[in-house]
């Protein structure tokens, strides 16, 4: 296997086009190198994009947030701008792997990997994020749901590098939360993970609800039926229970070594309710 270092996105894209199907982009490497060692993946060339300038960092301009693809999980965990209503980003980042992994693993990698259990993905879905894809000749943006096609499958063209995630938080009072279920608190691949965003009007009624679930389907998804049920109504326990039931109904979990499908579906409902309650509590904090 050959390892090439790219110093620009354009160079990485050109290398990928030239090297063909046997090449993969390498950023943090915390998933890719495991897959290669296990023999789950094979490749002839790795194109190291980990040190391309300008792909690292979090920028907040006006309302718009840009998280560069090479931003480490650690950087998101520590970002003061996410300590308020955008806390779900911190909550998801800090449960990815251990301390050492979060010092290497990138946000772009967590998304581009397209693992159904990726922890940042439900959060970014709940923030209506788009992904920025850069090829040799053009940059385009895709809504995250259009980017994620299936387990480990994305809409990125071969030569495109995921260069950033973008989102604009909703105007007005809002809160977010993220919860995941695993066998232990640290170092776990999620059995189920849920991210939610609730925005309210002055009367405290739900202006907008966004609920996203991971590890209960081939791709993480927005539970739109659950969201619609909350829209315009009060943030009551009853409404949350209905949203939980709707989220479970939208789930299509598999049974695997981590959990049965029945348990996952149960968790989808309960974690949705808990996440929504957490958002409600946080809305009180900022009231």
């Amino acid at each position, binding site marked *: *296997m*050959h*390892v090439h*270092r790219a110093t620009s996105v354009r160079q990485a894209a050109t290398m990928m086009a030239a090297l063909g199907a046997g090449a993969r982009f*390498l950023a943090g*490497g*915390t998933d890719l*190198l*495991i897959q*290669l*060692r296990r023999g789950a993946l094979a490749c002839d060339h*790795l194109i*190291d994009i*980990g*040190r391309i300038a300008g792909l690292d960092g979090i920028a907040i301009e006006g309302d718009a947030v840009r998280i560069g693809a090479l931003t480490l999980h*650690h950087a998101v965990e520590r970002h003061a701008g996410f300590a308020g209503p955008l806390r779900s980003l911190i909550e998801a980042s*800090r449960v990815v*792997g*251990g*301390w*050492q*992994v979060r*010092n*290497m693993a990138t946000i772009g990698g967590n998304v581009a990997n397209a693992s159904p259990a990726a922890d940042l993905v439900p959060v970014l879905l709940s923030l209506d994020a788009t992904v920025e894809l850069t090829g040799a000749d053009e940059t385009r943006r895709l809504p995250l749901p259009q980017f994620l096609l299936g387990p480990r499958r994305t809409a990125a063209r071969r030569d495109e590098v995921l260069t950033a995630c973008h989102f604009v938080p909703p105007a007005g009072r809002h809160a977010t939360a993220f919860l995941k279920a695993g066998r232990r*608190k*640290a*170092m776990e691949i999620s059995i189920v993970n849920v991210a939610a965003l609730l925005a309210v009007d002055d009367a405290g009624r739900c202006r907008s609800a966004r609920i996203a679930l991971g590890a209960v389907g081939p791709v993480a998804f927005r539970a739109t039926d659950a969201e619609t049920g909350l829209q315009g109504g009060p943030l009551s326990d009853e409404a949350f229970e209905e949203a939980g039931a709707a989220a479970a109904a939208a789930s299509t979990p598999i049974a695997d070594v981590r959990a049965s499908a029945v348990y996952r579906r149960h968790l989808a409902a309960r974690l949705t309710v808990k996440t929504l309650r957490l958002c409600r509590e946080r809305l009180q904090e900022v009231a």
Partner: protein
Amino acid sequence: MSTRLFRLHVNGAVREVEASESATLLDVLRGPLALVGTKANCLEAECGVCTVLLDGRAVTSCLVLAAQCEDREVVTIEGLAEAGEPHPLQSAFLEHGAVQCGYCIPGMIMTAAGLLREKHDPDDEEIREAMAGTLCRCTGYGKIVAAIKAAARNMRQGR
């Protein structure tokens, strides 16, 4: 398998080593550089025994390619002592009896070294969170946490 020459900065010295192009930092440390204080175990960042500092951050060297480390500073357990004096973490682990079989201790100390570079006064919760990816199967975590707290205190007091 194609090999190449890597130029690495390890424990303050420039080292040139020949290794497979896809060698990990761990492979190079324990192989040609014979720095075997860094342990090789799970090779999937589950256990933390291969932890080293890369540009001052604790990383598992099993999941970093040597190719990703060129022009970056690597510090291993062998490079932590200064001028013959043990690092405050090393002293504190000894004083607190935080070592049982010892196998995980280089990884523990390097993970803690990364934490203390970032947080000078971590509380128990922060220590436990930072150490969550570094496993001790003797399960002597209580003394390890106490040793890290003591080392942090000593370092703040300039000892």
